[in-house]
């Protein structure tokens, strides 16, 4: 079927299988490989992207459902080569190690801070319940989210 998505501000039209998952559309059709797949059960959040500005798990959305909508991946976050405050905070706070969960984590936090610009540590942790990281123990990811909130205030 024909789908028509706006990904990181760019319109992409493609003929895909009806069952194609959004995450595969991003990786294999749009060739944006930052968004990773870490599980089969909507559990890990590695594939988190923004769907019309809100975080979703792109492994549990059909490309067809996203047709006509705007998708933002971590590749679309920086503007003019300047990192988004959340990306910068991850760098400064050492919020990533292997980097695999990172794009999903960053997008989850971007969405979280849009909804709650000044979260407490507990709210950040609760807001990341759907994103797993195996390297950082979450400590510096939480620091990064709080630092990014601080910067934007």
């Amino acid at each position, binding site marked *: *079927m024909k789908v028509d998505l706006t990904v990181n501000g760019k319109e992409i039209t493609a003929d895909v299988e009806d*069952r194609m*998952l959004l995450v595969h559309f991003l990786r294999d059709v749009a060739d944006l490989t930052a968004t990773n797949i870490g599980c089969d059960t909507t559990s890990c959040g590695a594939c988190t992207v923004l769907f019309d500005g809100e975080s979703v*798990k792109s492994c549990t959305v059909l490309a067809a*459902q996203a047709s006509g909508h705007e998708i933002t991946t971590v590749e679309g976050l920086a503007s003019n080569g300047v990192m988004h405050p959340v990306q910068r905070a991850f760098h400064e706070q050492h919020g990533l190690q292997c980097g695999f969960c990172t794009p999903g984590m960053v997008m989850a936090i971007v969405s979280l801070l849009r909804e709650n610009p000044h979260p407490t540590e507990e709210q950040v942790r609760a807001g990341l319940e759907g994103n797993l990281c195996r390297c950082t123990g979450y400590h510096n990811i939480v620091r990064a989210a709080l630092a990014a909130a601080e910067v934007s205030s």
Partner: protein
Amino acid sequence: MIPASFTYKRAASVDEALDLAAEYGEDAKYLAGGHSLLPLMKLRLAAPEVIIDLGELHDLSFVADLGSRLAIGALTRHHDVEHSELLTRELPLLAHAAGQVGDPQVRHRGTIGGSVAHADPASDLPAVLLALDATVVARGTDGSREIPIGEFFQGLFETVLEPDELLTEIRVPKPAAGSRGWSFQKFTQRAIDWAIVGVAVQGGAVALINMAGTPLRAAAAEAALAGGAPPDGAAAHAAEGTSAASDIRASREYREHLARVLVSRALTEAASRT
């Protein structure tokens, strides 16, 4: 993991959705937010031949004050239920519980109607709506009918909805004065997990999550409470009439124990909120 092949149809209106459902019958499944159905399809536990996407039926996403009742469109997302000012004021139990479903990403996609129609006894909102004495509105090609939620759930993943019917709306009576106290107790191992056991209390109504094949009311506890028993006294009856399963997270015995503890806590908290 990817779903088995299917044909995707996007409904532009409720009527079109009903027509598509009539056309494809049992082979078709409605897809709302997709956060119950797509995971099952990826694990090949469900393999519908046709998917009817309701995602663009924006007129089914609303919260409305009907006077003595509130109406919530079936496609209202958990996120929107959680943040609805009207619901936060009038039905804080529902707004709060919607904020406990899944994780933020799930709440950005999942809908109240999808959650109810999926009829998973481990899911939060069916039991909450049971405690609230909600009514489900189903529309078929012949018109709409209202179904009391107590009659809606038939078993594990089974409801009274006919294949050609679409759940369009949920109506909830505003709690009467004296029944405004509420509590939601969701017991999980990790925040993201389904409830091992959950309890929703509104006034004197007590509903249980994951204590049987359907969400159910803790009738014996409610009766004891109505008879004047204190929270812990009433809660001692919380597991009566339940048929909880044993699984890797909890034995039936532990679930029954949790039901008693959580009902006691919920009734105490609800009493503090009246």
